[in-house]
């Protein structure tokens, strides 16, 4: 089991060692630079998709608890649609099927946008479920008390229900955020140059499977764990003493 880590300093086109392990950049790069570049792609795709998922998912969760039946039905339809199709199938639908149904999209949207949509909408269904559950955990009296003191329904949501509901669902939202980082690995199937694509291609070129897959695994772990720690910090900062979940 002899491992050779020297190849990371080799140029990806010529295979020769580069002094200082970092080449001039752009097309002339070492395997180490390629890996860091790929990690950057993984993080970008994950964070963009997470942003989309949080915004859309929260909206869907809120409208599912609204008294308006049509809004609630739309929210349910959205959730069921994106929850019942496997993620990889959704990615292919966005990348191959939808641009062929609407050819204008093929020029307009890059594959990055499509993968962010696929990951974001898939996760938004799950986040919607959790936000809905958080709102439903609150006693019914909270909503009626808000309406009784003269707030409109949107004001009740904004000042009474959502502040409590979001604090309650921070742990499941953390899980979903970490899931997005892990699920971003499916982006390799639609030609995003992210970590898994780097791992597959570079291990084929250099035949150093362990020396590539182990650091890639560690980078995925570190990325997901960092999100976990950020969420823990946020949870501690927004805690309200005396409410559920507080110390």
């Amino acid at each position, binding site marked *: *089991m002899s491992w050779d880590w020297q190849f990371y300093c080799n140029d*990806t*086109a*010529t295979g020769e060692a580069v002094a200082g392990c970092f080449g001039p950049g752009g*097309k*002339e790069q070492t395997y180490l630079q390629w890996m860091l570049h790929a990690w950057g792609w993984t993080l970008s795709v994950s964070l963009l998709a997470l942003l989309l998922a949080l915004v859309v998912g929260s909206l869907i969760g809120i409208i599912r608890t609204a008294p308006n039946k049509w809004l609630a039905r739309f929210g349910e339809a959205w959730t069921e649609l994106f929850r019942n199709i496997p993620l990889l199938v959704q990615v292919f639908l966005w990348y*191959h099927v939808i*641009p*062929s149904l609407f050819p204008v999209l*093929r020029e307009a949207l890059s*594959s990055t946008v499509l993968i962010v949509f696929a990951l974001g909408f898939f996760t938004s269904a799950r986040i919607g479920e959790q936000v809905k559950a958080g709102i439903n955990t609150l006693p019914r009296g909270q909503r009626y008390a808000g309406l009784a003191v003269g707030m409109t329904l949107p004001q009740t949501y904004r000042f009474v229900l959502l502040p409590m509901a979001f604090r309650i669902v921070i742990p499941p939202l953390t899980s979903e955020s970490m899931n997005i980082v892990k699920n971003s690995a499916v982006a*390799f*199937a639609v*030609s995003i*140059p992210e970590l898994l*694509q780097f791992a*597959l*291609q570079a*291990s*084929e*070129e*250099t*035949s150093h*499977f362990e020396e590539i897959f182990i650091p890639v695994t560690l980078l995925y772990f570190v990325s997901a764990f960092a999100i976990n720690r950020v969420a823990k910090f946020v949870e501690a900062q927004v805690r309200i003493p005396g409410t559920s979940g507080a110390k």
Partner: protein
Amino acid sequence: MKKVLLVAALFAAVSAVHAEDTLKKIKDSGAITMGVRESSGLSYTIGDGKYVGYHIDVCERVIADLRKQLGSKIEVKYQPVTSANRIPLTVNGTVDLECGSTTNNSARQKDVAFAVTTYVEEVRIAVKANSGITSINQLNGKTVATTTGTTSVQTLRKHERATGVDFKEVFGKDHADSFLLLDSGRADAFVMDGSILAKNIATSKNPADFKIVGEVLSVEPIAIMMRKDDPAFKKAVDDSIKAIIKSGELAKLYDKWFLQPIPPTNTRSGLPLSAATKEAWANPNDKPMEDYAKK
């Protein structure tokens, strides 16, 4: 301390699986596992778990010879592999004989061994017939598709560096996916081994829509792959292949798979026998790709 020694001993035992005797393993288990590809030029599936192709036919003749040599029945198990996992599966013993379209190069010869070269591949470009592209230099600023985990990715990279042509690369996860990128218009060209291009064009909905154009970007010897440090098995496979070259059967197999209609759509690839392949048959060898480039 004892625990450390125990773990170290286990590690040593697990990693001491080199220089195994594949012939003995086949004789004892009565079975050989053939690595096959789902959609490559020399080995592909026609559905229902059936795999066919030029290299599959060659391997079946090799296995028939092994049956005679070992004097026992050998059951053939098919294990689909991909560009990414074919070497790990061969090295760890899951696959005994990989009969796909694996390029023989020096980097791979550190982990596996190759039989004598049965086919010499030339990396070409497939484009839509009405695109007017005839050379790689016309691809400046265009989108080029290739498959993740293949040698063509590195070939394109070296070419970009050497000539200064700049194109956008998209990667399919397998050859069928990369061809779909070309077919759907997401890519302007698909760069891959000529036999894979020919096979994907021949089995597509409208073969006349596509053309294989341009100069040869890379010459690669394709061979059947097996585990390293097993001279008895390599000799058996090599002898079998040399015999079918000598008897003219390999030439007939080439004709069957490249010049005659093939399943499942009964179209023909129409790829004529290249001088390089004829030369490889005339002087059977397992030289890696780097030796071809030196010429």
